[in-house]
């Protein structure tokens, strides 16, 4: 991770997140944005960063638009939601737009650092509520148009997480390594993004936009 953008309207939070970023990725280039419009402009013109920490509730809009734009223009960029919301109602849209993780701004910077390290190493966080949402999303009879359904293992992992167990416990229960479990979760997030795009395209076609 060489470069990171932080979209956040509170200066104190910039400092707080910066501290965590410096701890995990020493010497990383941090670009700060306070308004959504500036970040969107930068995404269109500047070279994309390796990592983006994005707040959802901004004075001039929702951070989800930046996640969508980056996901379109720079799929390599890892988008992480940094907000004060921890509920699936707020996080699910961001994940569908392409976010690969989420953290709470009010967590201690050590916790934030740990989460960021996990995300960078391909261990995205997954709460029981999000896992339940994902299970519902990938239920075959609802999304029959889905091109990439979940594998059985991926579904199993989601089921275990949905019961409140940790990734480590899931790995032990399934008799696989924690690393493999992380791989599954990452793959689940990717499929979520792909199916959400397909869904959006289908919706657009259905309402006559495309």
């Amino acid at each position, binding site marked *: 991770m060489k470069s990171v953008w932080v979209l956040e309207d509170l200066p104190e939070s910039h400092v707080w997140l910066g501290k965590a970023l410096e701890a995990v990725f020493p010497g990383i280039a941090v670009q700060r944005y306070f308004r959504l419009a500036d970040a969107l402009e930068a995404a269109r013109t500047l070279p994309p960063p390796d990592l983006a920490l994005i707040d959802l509730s901004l004075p001039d809009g929702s951070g989800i638009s930046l996640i969508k734009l980056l996901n379109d223009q720079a799929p390599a960029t890892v988008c992480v939601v940094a907000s*004060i*919301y*921890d*509920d699936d109602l707020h996080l699910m849209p961001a994940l569908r737009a392409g976010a690969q993780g989420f953290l709470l701004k*009010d*967590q*201690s910077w050590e*916790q934030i650092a740990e989460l960021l390290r996990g995300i960078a190493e391909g261990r995205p966080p997954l*709460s*029981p*509520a999000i896992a*339940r949402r994902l299970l519902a999303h990938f239920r075959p009879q609802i999304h029959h148009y889905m091109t990439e359904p979940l594998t059985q293992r991926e579904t199993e992992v989601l089921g275990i997480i*949905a*019961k*409140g*167990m*940790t990734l480590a416990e899931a790995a032990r229960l399934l008799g696989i390594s924690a690393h493999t479990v992380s791989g599954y979760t990452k793959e689940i997030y990717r499929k979520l993004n792909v199916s959400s795009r397909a869904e959006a395209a289908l919706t657009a076609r259905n309402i006559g936009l495309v």
Partner: protein
Amino acid sequence: MAYLLVFLALFCGLLPVQAQSASATRVLDQASVVQNTSITPPDQVPDALSPLPHDWLDSPAALPEQRWYHITFDDAGWVLPAVYVERACTNLEVWVNGQLVGSGGAMVEPLTRNCYYPQLIRFQRSLLHSNPNRLDIRVVGYPAAYVAARQRGGGLSQVLIGEQAELVPRFDARYFWNITLAQVIGICMLLLGLVITALGWVRRQDRHYLYFGAALMLWAVAGARLYVQHVPFTVLAGEVLFTSLLAPFVYTILQFLLHYVHQPRRWVQQLLMWQCVAVPVLLALVPAPALAATARGVYVLWSGEFVLTLAFFAWHSWRFMRRDFWLMGANLVLMLALVAAEIAVQNAWLALPKIHLVHLAMPAIFLAIGVRLVQQFAAVLTESERLNRELEQRVADKTAEIAHSYAQLSDLRVEQAAAAERQRIASDLHDDLGAKLVTISQASLYANDIGRVAELARQALSDMRLSVRGLTGAPAPLPYVLADWRSETVERLTLAGVAVFWNANDPALEWMLPARMQVQLTRILREAVSNVIRHSGARMCWVDIHVARDHLRLGVEDDGHGFDTQQASLGQGLGNMLRRARVLNGTLQIVPREGGGVCIHLNVPLALNPIGQFTDAGGA
């Protein structure tokens, strides 16, 4: 209108009687009378002449009695001669110059009943010879004393002889008024009676309809005595039978009057019913010569009953039904007048009228009463429809009113629920956020406790998130709640370096926990875990959760250094837990653990049921 018809009828009925002096028609008003049983005209006739009409008042030699009327007449040169007899009771035969030229029917019992029938007998002109010609009329019948009504007493009216063309209109007119009209009236009375009875049938509570309908039909049947000629029994038996038919008529018409004013009397009804039996028996038992006198007595008795009932009727209708008093009263008084006239006729105080007055006039009155009844029925129906409409309108109004009240009530309840919810949120904000913000504001004065301030602020944020969830959240399935608890608890304790042993049962997915309850329980668990992390110095923590349909048990134990060394600030955390347990109607116990550490035991009542409904027993 009905009266007009009656008087018109009377007037017309009298007309032919006054116009008897036609040019070529001879009126024969004297005859020699011979009383014998011969079936051929008598050879010897007395010189004494009796005037016609001739009524049989003296005692008979045999029954039925037979009399020969011998009349001589001059031929007036008629082309088509005929004899017209206005009334010959009970039956007659006509002989011209010793030749039988016409008969009304059977001359032996059972006699043909021709008392009301006019007779027109045509004969060949060739039967006439040089004057004087001879006309013999044979009449069989019963003297007035042997029959129940004077109209059917034996006798012969004046005899007219002349051209058929002149006599036929007289015959037709008489026939119409006496016979055809009686038949038409009979049918009309029967139909009206049926209609009124049908009305009474659908409206049993108004008995007077049934009585009146029955009265009309009985009258129609009794009226058959006017035009029924052939009956398979003797004239005397017929007299008893026809007169007896009037007894049930009296019964029904009097009952009608009493029911009309809603004053039926059981004893009156019983008396009248007995009368229906007694009158036929009496008439059948009295000796034949006393039949007329007995019948007159019965008529007077009935008239008396009628007058009494009428007086009773007038008194009641005057007091309670003034409108009916005038309408019905007029009809009934007219009826009374007719009855009085008939009584007078029967007792020979008045001459026998040409037509049967009672029988023509009564139906007109009945018709007026019947129309009045039908009109009342229709009025009641109209009134009932109007009331029904009003009722429907009132029901609609009330329904709208109730719906309006219900809407208001439900608005009020929503408002009350919202108020209660606001109260809870306010209480939460004060108790949790408020307390933490106070601590933050006080602790921030001391630079050496920055970390504590940050921790308190994070807790405040976390509390706020929970409050928001409690405010917006829907009831959550219990397994989901347990999963969230497990995830959070294990993560926090693990991060703090405490080994967690989680033990919870697996409730059914249908069991829903209301958001408020979820929030309160989450806070208690969170506080308990916070205590373990912050104060106990524990290395291990056991969390036990047991959910049943009616309660939830939560135990948090640690192997730290126990309760005694709790810091002062722990008081607030424990206080919050105790308060929340109380809000949930539950109990919270904090006891030292054997071998060191603390046990926290929470027990709250639930009211879960399998279909996913939840009764908020906790009052959260």
